[in-house]
């Protein structure tokens, strides 16, 4: 049962990711990203990470993807032009990707008896999770606010017109 579910959703995840790359219209790509995110959430659930699964659905499949779709629609992005890729990307890029994939896969397949990778002893409930987040990991949690602040500042600096920049409509 577990294996069937895994194959099903892992396959769905891969298919979604491939479709994301192959689709020409950004909105189709965005929609396939939702498939990827949701099937990843199911995989997390099967690994016993309930909180992560829920957060994945709410944050990624929900909030972020809605934002993505909105932006794509607001920008009215059309179909993208596509080139066949340069000589370098065919001759070096794809073989390199294949080699890296093969190396990573062989190492992971060879590694035996991986134990649990968990924060502390069994972290299952939301309460225990927040105890870790707000205690052991309080510093990275707080410092993330600086990261978000920088992102906002950057958005303002790059998108807003400066004080002295001449407006094109002459006002």
């Amino acid at each position: 049962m577990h294996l069937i579910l895994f194959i099903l959703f892992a396959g769905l995840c891969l298919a979604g990711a491939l479709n994301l790359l192959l689709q020409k219209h950004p909105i189709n790509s965005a929609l396939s990203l939702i498939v990827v995110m949701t099937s990843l959430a199911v995989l997390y659930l099967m690994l016993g990470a309930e909180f992560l699964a829920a957060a994945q659905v709410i944050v990624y499949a929900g909030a972020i993807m809605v934002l993505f779709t909105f932006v794509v629609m607001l920008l009215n992005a059309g179909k993208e032009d596509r080139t066949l890729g340069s000589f370098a990307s065919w001759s070096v890029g794809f073989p390199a990707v294949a080699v890296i994939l093969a190396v990573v896969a062989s190492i992971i397949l060879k590694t035996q008896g991986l134990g649990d990778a968990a924060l502390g002893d069994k972290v299952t409930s939301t309460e225990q999770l927040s105890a870790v987040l707000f205690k052991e990991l309080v510093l990275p949690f707080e410092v993330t606010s600086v990261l978000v602040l920088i992102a906002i500042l950057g958005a303002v600096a790059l998108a807003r017109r400066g004080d002295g920049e001449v407006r094109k409509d002459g006002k």
Partner: protein
Amino acid sequence: MNIDLLHLMPTDIFRILPEIVLTITGVLVMLIDAALPPRADRRNLGWLAAIGTAFALLSSQAQLVLLQLPERTGFYGTVETSSFSIFFHVLICGIVLVALLVALDTLPENGHHKGEYFALIVFGAVGMCLLTSAVELLVVFIALEISSISTYILAGYRKDTGRGVEAAIKYFLLGSFATGFFLYGVAMAFGATGTTVISEIAARVHTGENQGLLVLSLGLMLVGILFKVSAAPFHVWTPDVYEGAPSPVVALMSTAPKAAAFALLIRVVYGAFPSMQPLWTPLLWIVAVLSMTVGNLAALRQQNVKRMLAYSSIAHAGYLLAAFAGVGNTGITAACFYIAAYASMNVGIFAVVTLISGYNDELPLIKDFRGVLYRTPVLGGVLIFFLISLIGIPFTGGFFGKFFSFSTAMGGGAIWLVLIGLLNSGLAAAYYLRLVVSVAQKPEVDAPLAPARQPIGVAVAAALMLAVAATLVLGIAPGEVLKNATQGAYELMPHSMHQVNSPGSSVPQ
């Protein structure tokens, strides 16, 4: 949130004192910027940012001296205060201070988000500083992102030019990809050891379990970090980004984030994977040789000054990586010293280039620099001084940097690496001298006059003086800095792995 509940001591707060000072400065700059009327002069915000950075520098110094913090970790083992972290805090705050002073006088009068510019630099410094004191990979990752994202944004500050936008997008896409590699490496390390604390990873690596995953983890992390320090073959972004980004920004981003990334490299290879030294030494050997050779050969063919300096910075990353071939932990000292020397001369030379070429790169080519020495003797002289230091002529920081790095590599038995390095240094002299000759030639009568005719401002003069002084001190009396670097290196290693010899032991002071 209640501090008691968290079991945090006041000492925990003091361990991140410089970061707190910088964050408060950044928030103040941001808020005052928003409160000022739209067309008000925002130059004073730069002074505020500079004063805040100077305080951060002092507070970092005060951590061990005034506050008498015991050299241990805080915040549940996520950050540490040690001579190593303080060495880099002082260095990074110093670079940021110089970069702010340069920006004060060289940013255009209007049309730019000056307030955001200063705030972004200060917030970026928070990330860079934290990166050097973090001993837990989650904090490392967030700090790395803070430092990177602020640099991506600053690189695109000339948004009205195609080059500026190209630089920002290229840097952002490739940089995010590299950070992805690093994060994947962190995940692998966590999977193999069940911890993200660097010292605990080292203990598990030592036991020899899950070696395959750990090797993969080391490789992936190295890809991410070597991208950030622009070492070959992960260097392709460097020339385009340096050319497109405004020169005052390049002064910052070719030095401070790189210093932080080298600190991270030292922590990862010597801190987390010390028992894999037979594995990463040859890897870094290859990267060092590639960086020197690719950087210098490409720099020879450049006509654009900023592109030439970009390739030269790739080559310098190579000279620095040569230090990692040293026996045991001797490489750390030489690497720390080289970072300080490299940073002081590079931040200085880009400050001079800003003054000569102008913010918008009106005079970008080597031949445009002709006659600078006659037109503005001070600038020309300072430029030649920094070029001499980059070549590595004695009595400048660049000389001792290379000397320590190569002698450490010699100590580690990497004779070929040193030979290739010396050949490369000779090769590099060719293109540096080309610029020196251009600067010292008599100007043509009808040549366009450099914007540097305008008087050099107080702030930028102070910045240049700081950079020149640092380069001179590192070249004439390297003893003090070397002592601090050695102390930092000593404390970084687990105590069982200490080596007695350090590269400075045979150096006259």
